[in-house]
């Protein structure tokens, strides 16, 4: 048993070493008067949010702040706990990726009432004047770009299926609406079936396999994010139909970029999460330094279309 334990222990040590143990902070390199910034994200096991966390931690460290990192997994109750903990820890500012537009208003209000400025990244809340800034990527604009490229690749017509994100997540609807705003006005397209795969690759594959059974001659797939699109690609690969079906993704994660380069995915849309997070931390720093308010509370950063031409320069959600 000792040997088995060693395998696990070794794995754990390596993994801990790699993560740098989120939550702990190194006080040595923090500049004088910096203080702590609390970073509350969704789920760092997902590359997208990992990029968000890494950027926030790195940017804050450059500006001389210590950081704490927590993940609420889209659970508003957990989010409230982390906000409470940040308030009692007396952090200087909170960078928050909120768990739901309506559900998060109260938690943000709580922190604001306690005199702690909150800067939102990636998603909005349904109230204004509570957070100092709400920096989101322009999902509708990005989805429109993606849909236009996909329509072109399809040759302006064809039967297709849709993989929808988590139905309770507003971004799923925003992206789908923008896709359909482009596609539905072209008479040659026909939506055969729409299934949710909850942003998940395994579910995307399982749903795609079944839709391939139901509609063997489908020609295209639009997916609300890259993970579902990558699942669909695996299903298509196994069915030997990868070259006959055009797949559209969204997010710009590294696996999707590889798929775009390989010609398996028509296009994906890069969410500028790194730029947005940097902006949030910088605006927090400006506010803490001399009370400078962000130019506007709601800030939308445009998404960037990723196709074969520019995919090579994209890594870790940064386009060089």
């Amino acid at each position, binding site marked *: *048993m000792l040997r088995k*334990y060693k*395998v696990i222990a070794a794995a754990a040590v390596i993994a801990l070493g790699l993560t740098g143990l989120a939550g702990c902070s190194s006080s040595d390199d923090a500049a004088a008067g910096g203080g702590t910034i609390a970073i509350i994200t969704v789920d760092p096991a997902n590359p997208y949010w*990992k990029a968000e966390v890494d950027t926030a931690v790195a940017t804050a460290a450059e500006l001389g702040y210590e950081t704490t990192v927590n993940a609420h997994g889209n659970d508003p109750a957990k989010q409230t706990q982390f906000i409470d903990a940040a308030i009692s820890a007396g952090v200087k500012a909170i960078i928050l990726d909120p768990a739901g537009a309506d559900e998060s208003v109260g938690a943000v209000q709580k922190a604001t009432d306690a005199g702690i400025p909150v800067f939102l990244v990636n998603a909005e809340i349904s109230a204004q004047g509570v957070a100092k800034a709400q920096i989101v990527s322009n999902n509708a604009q990005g989805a429109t770009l993606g849909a236009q490229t996909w329509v072109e690749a399809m040759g302006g017509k064809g039967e297709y299926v849709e993989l929808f994100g988590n139905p309770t997540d507003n971004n799923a609807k925003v992206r789908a609406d923008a896709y359909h705003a482009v596609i539905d006005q072209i008479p040659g397209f026909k939506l055969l079936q729409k*299934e949710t795969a909850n942003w998940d690759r395994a579910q995307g594959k399982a749903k795609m396999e079944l839709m391939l059974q139901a509609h063997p001659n489908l020609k295209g797939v639009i997916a609300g994010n890259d993970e579902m699109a990558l699942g669909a690609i695996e299903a298509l690969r196994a069915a030997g139909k990868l070259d006959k079906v055009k797949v559209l993704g969204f997010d710009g994660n590294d*696996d999707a970029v590889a798929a775009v380069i390989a010609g398996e995915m028509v296009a994906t849309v890069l969410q500028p999460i790194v730029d947005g997070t940097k902006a949030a931390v910088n605006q927090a720093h400006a506010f803490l330094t001399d009370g400078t308010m962000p130019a506007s509370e709601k800030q939308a950063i445009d998404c960037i279309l990723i196709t074969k031409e520019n995919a090579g320069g994209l890594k870790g959600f940064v386009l060089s």
Partner: protein
Amino acid sequence: MNLNPLKRGESSATPAKFDRRAFIVEIRALIALAIIVIFFSLLSDKFLQYSNLVLMTRHVAMNAILAIGMLLVILNGGIDLSVGSIVGLSGVVAGYLMQGAPVPFTGHVAYPNIWAVLVISLIVGIFFGWLNGLLVAKLNIAPFIATLGMLYVARGFAKLITNGETFTKLAGEPTLGNTGFLTTFAAQPLGIPLPIWVMIAFAIVFSIILNRTAFGRWLYASGGNPRAAALTGVPVTKVNIRIYVLSGFCAAAVGVLFTADLHAAIPNMGEFSELNAIAAVVIGGTALSGGRGTVRGTLIGAFVIGFLVDGLVLIGVSVFWQETIKGAVIIVAVAVEEIQRILERRQKLKSAS
């Protein structure tokens, strides 16, 4: 119930009354499966196509393998909520080893061949199952709590190992001698995907374990009445640890198969699959209180759930209805059994008076 567990080679026949009840429950699950098959084949001409049946059975197989492990635990009156997380962890460990594992303190990177990868991944699952067993059998922690804790621990480790990445370089390289992960574990011998073969193999092996070995008789005895079983000499603690080890082993096997199937190791893999496994076991006529249940029934239960879920997608029912209907079928399947038991009891009381 067999209270004479120490004699090996004894006939495994149990009293006729028990056989009859198990038989009736299994027949009912079979009828449910038949209804599902007829219903969907009427609504979609694709449902009974060979390729679709193979596909759905492959989906079923993953759940069925988990459910067989779960069956052992539930037969003993326990529950294992950690299997979904162990699927994720073992899959991630396999993916991690395929990328090349840095050996601590040496600066070298090890690229184990695929059989070593398989064995290590399975050992990880066995180890976590063994921990479950220790917590439940030695420390007397309620199985629900012990395995709930392990659900988080194992998932946490999976996320720590991946550090937010998805492992996709699973093909290996000829120069490193670690090729074949995908071709072997996502193979299709005789045109049938490997998970289906594994399901068949596990079903046969575990049927034999349950029906033809001392361990099987111990398990049924200790699940039916642990105190009586202990008094007749059944090593109750040993049995209790072993079932969690086997459940962890089944989960780890699914983890490897899942990773090969998806061409990626994802830390969230297998989330909530413990619930599907429990549902399959219960629909298959296994009593949650322990002591009663069969591999055959569990397999039928897995097919009921899998064919139902896939059938609903195939005919294009909205996702919200898919979940609602799945839940309702689980409840109805168990409720019918309980209602029948109540009726039987009333009848007995009547005839007694």
